[in-house]
């Protein structure tokens, strides 16, 4: 058994399943409602697969209006709703409970408007992150946030988790690229926030919707900023035999005035696994940086010259500047296969605490010490430019007690991240995974202020309850719902 507890499902709601399903089927087309116990199993978990529970029913509406109908029925019948995009959350953000109805965006897949003059695209939120870029790239544009799961993850989930990616050092995360939404409130009311203009008329409600993990509303349409594609991009790979020097190199690059689009970091355990798997030709050293810059050929050459000039005096074991598309692909190949390579040899848990760039070295050192203390293995691969760590804790899911040990080690690492001035999660979200760790980062008053925002949007706490906020802190609010 694992250590994250979910509330006991409401037996009274489960008993009313037929009635609830009948109400949904009466108001919605038959193919949008899934209630068969065999079929709902497909929705029992997201990418945090250690936790599973089939929902009461699943609704996959085809329009915003159908989302509104489904949500209003659940609201009126006192049934909890778990919003779901593509189900790729690593934090259990879309984990169902036995007494909940999933409302998913899987069938909301239309592109509604493309406007190159004003540089935005309006889509239904069930489209995948990568397909947004796919829609506009032939015309020379792209959508900047690029989470690793971009092939599968939906814009709905990107908005819920305020997703980032490797390139957010330059382009920002979802909240910086989201201009507007159409969304459904718990009452079934459909509202629009923002649009093609660049700021809010009053309170920035859009700002608090983004990253709210399905706690406030269900977003069905999004207006996203698209950008002209850069003329080109090339990376340089720099290996160091001292993690501290690598961290120093990152800070020097940032301070120098060159703003790379990405600075990625891999430590020795990660390099070893990746080399065995992808044969990317990485030097086996303590720390490997991949620094990518953009621009015209001359601009790229200028920036890479500056970066290598900063790195050389630090005594790197290797500097490899890409000179072609093939060489760029080879440098990125290992980094991009890191998670897959790790998955081949082990089960792993991926954390995403973020620390100040100045605390990277200390944090890495502490993670190493904690690994010895907890007798666990860990590999580090992360976005160094913005301090977003991704320690991969290796464990064996089939070995009793191993997941619990991994979770305990993970909690200790996130504690270090908070202690050095960082946070529990940089881009994955809190979900259930880090819910009860929130008290490490926030005071009761801090949490109360956040929960009262939920009170306003969702007075009965039916949207994605038992996520984000520590169970103890939200207990009274969740219990008063019926």
């Amino acid at each position, binding site marked *: 058994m694992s250590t994250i507890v979910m509330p006991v499902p409401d037996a009274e709601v489960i008993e009313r399943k037929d009635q609830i399903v009948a109400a949904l089927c009466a108001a919605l087309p038959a193919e949008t409602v899934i209630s068969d116990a065999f079929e709902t199993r497909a929705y029992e978990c997201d990418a945090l697969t250690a936790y599973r529970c089939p929902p009461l029913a699943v609704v996959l509406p085809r329009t915003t209006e159908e989302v509104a109908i489904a949500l209003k029925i659940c609201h009126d019948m006192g049934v909890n709703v778990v919003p779901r995009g593509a189900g790729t959350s690593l934090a259990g953000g879309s984990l169902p409970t036995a007494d909940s109805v999933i409302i998913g965006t899987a069938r909301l897949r239309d592109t509604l408007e493309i406007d*190159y*003059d004003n*540089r935005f695209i309006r889509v239904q939120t069930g489209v995948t992150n990568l397909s947004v870029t796919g829609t506009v790239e032939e015309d*020379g544009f792209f959508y900047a946030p690029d989470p690793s799961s971009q092939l599968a993850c939906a814009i709905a989930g990107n908005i819920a*988790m*305020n997703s*980032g990616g490797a390139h*957010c050092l330059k382009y920002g*995360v979802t*909240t910086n690229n989201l201009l507007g939404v159409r969304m459904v*409130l718990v009452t079934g009311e459909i*509202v629009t926030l923002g649009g093609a*203009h*660049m*700021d809010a*008329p*009053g*309170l*920035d409600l859009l*700002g*608090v919707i*983004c*990253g709210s993990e399905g706690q406030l509303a269900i977003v069905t349409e999004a207006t996203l900023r698209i950008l*002209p594609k*850069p003329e080109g991009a090339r990376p340089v790979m720099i290996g160091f035999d001292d993690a501290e020097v690598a961290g120093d190199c990152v800070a*020097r690059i*940032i*301070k120098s*005035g*060159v*703003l790379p689009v990405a600075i990625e970091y891999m430590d020795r355990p990660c390099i070893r696994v990746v080399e065995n798997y992808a044969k990317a030709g990485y030097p086996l050293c303590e720390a490997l940086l991949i620094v990518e810059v953009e*621009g*015209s050929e001359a*601009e790229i050459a*200028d*920036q890479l010259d500056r970066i290598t000039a900063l790195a050389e005096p630090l005594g790197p074991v290797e500097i490899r500047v890409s000179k072609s598309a093939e060489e760029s692909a080879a440098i990125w190949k290992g980094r991009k296969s890191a998670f897959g390579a790790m998955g081949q040899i082990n089960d792993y848990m991926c954390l995403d605490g*973020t620390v*100040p*760039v*100045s605390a990277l070295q200390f944090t890495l050192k502490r993670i190493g010490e904690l690994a010895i203390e907890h007798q666990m293995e860990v590999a580090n691969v992360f976005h160094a430019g*913005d*301090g977003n760590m991704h320690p991969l804790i290796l464990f064996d899911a089939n070995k009793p007690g191993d997941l619990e040990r991994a979770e305990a080690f993970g909690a200790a690492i996130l504690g270090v991240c908070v202690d050095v001035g960082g946070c529990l*999660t*940089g*881009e*994955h*979200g*809190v979900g259930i995974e*880090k819910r009860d760790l929130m008290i490490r*980062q926030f*005071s009761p*008053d*801090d949490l109360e*202020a*956040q929960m*009262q925002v*939920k*009170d*306003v949007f969702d007075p009965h706490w039916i949207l994605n309850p038992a996520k*984000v906020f520590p169970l103890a802190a939200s207990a009274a609010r969740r219990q008063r719902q019926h």
Partner: protein
Amino acid sequence: MTAPLTPDSEDALCDVVRAAAAAATPLRIVGGGTRSGIGRPVAAATPVSTAGLSGVTLYEPGAMTLIAKAGTPLAEIEALLATERQYLAFEPMDHRPLLGSNGTPTVGGVVSANVSGPRRLRAGACRDFLLGLRFVDGHGRLVKNGGRVMKNVTGLDLGKLLCGAYGTLGIVTEVALKTLPRPERAATLVFDGLTDAQAVALFCKALGTPFEVSGAAFVDGRALLRIEGLTDQVGYRIDRLTQLLERPDRTVIKGADHTRLWDDVRDVRTFADSTGSVWRLSVKATDAPAITSALQQSLGAQTVLDWGGGLIWARLPQDAPAAAGAHIRQILAPLGGHATLIRAGADLRAETDVFQPEPAPLAGLSAGLRARFDPQNILNPGLMAV
């Protein structure tokens, strides 16, 4: 005027707010006072100043992070960043020339009003650079949100709510901002003799290129396109843009004149030392020509465009009717976007919706948030919404 209360610590400020909440005494929150003319007048309130909460508490150029107390003068921060060749990339506007106000802009005021400038177009607004903050809500509780790191999705993003809330949800006491390296070089392409429509068409074309145009404004019949970057980059981009836009007749401004040029755009200098009310309209860029044309014809407005057309500044003649605001919003209604009255006498601000009225469900959410964060309605009451 009553001398403001000047608490010198967050704890002292909490005490002030708790006492005011208990007595239901309205508070008027004062930073440097340079933007106190924005919003509905706050009636008969005790002023509370952030002047006692001042100073940069952390600056790490290698981490692009600055933390400062709310009352810190913006100039002090900008001077400190300059020593490391960094800056606040959102280019906060100085409202003093436009509003004819005195005082010293503070970082707390910049955040509370989400003040940005021409570079908002490319770099983002103040809210996009706000990494975290601390504030005292209307209960007198100290709340922190966000943090000091570049990526943070831990819990709800209250920073965005507070940024631009003009103190109505809480009194900001400390902010963490992302800094960026200052561009090595900058230059501006100038195109004369264009109409609003021609200027916006030019902006759309230029902003659709990968040359990272960081300013696109149309002032006094001149369209301006700003290019910034590394030394070699700027020349290259100027050349490429000139070719692409097929406008060899453009002129180029750089050097000291260049800094002044964009400071003037940022601060809407064109409308300084003038009379009449000034509105700020946020719209879809390609809608701007139709809107400015309507404003000019029906209200005799003088207009300036920024953000490639997405931001319209409109000065109305002094004898414009009191209902001009309603008329402006009628022009916007079929198109989307919103209008805010930025400069006007207290009487006009008292009888006009200074901020765009929201549709009922959204107004309900905003009112609900204010009621939770400030149940006694003591923080700048009425400034944003009655």
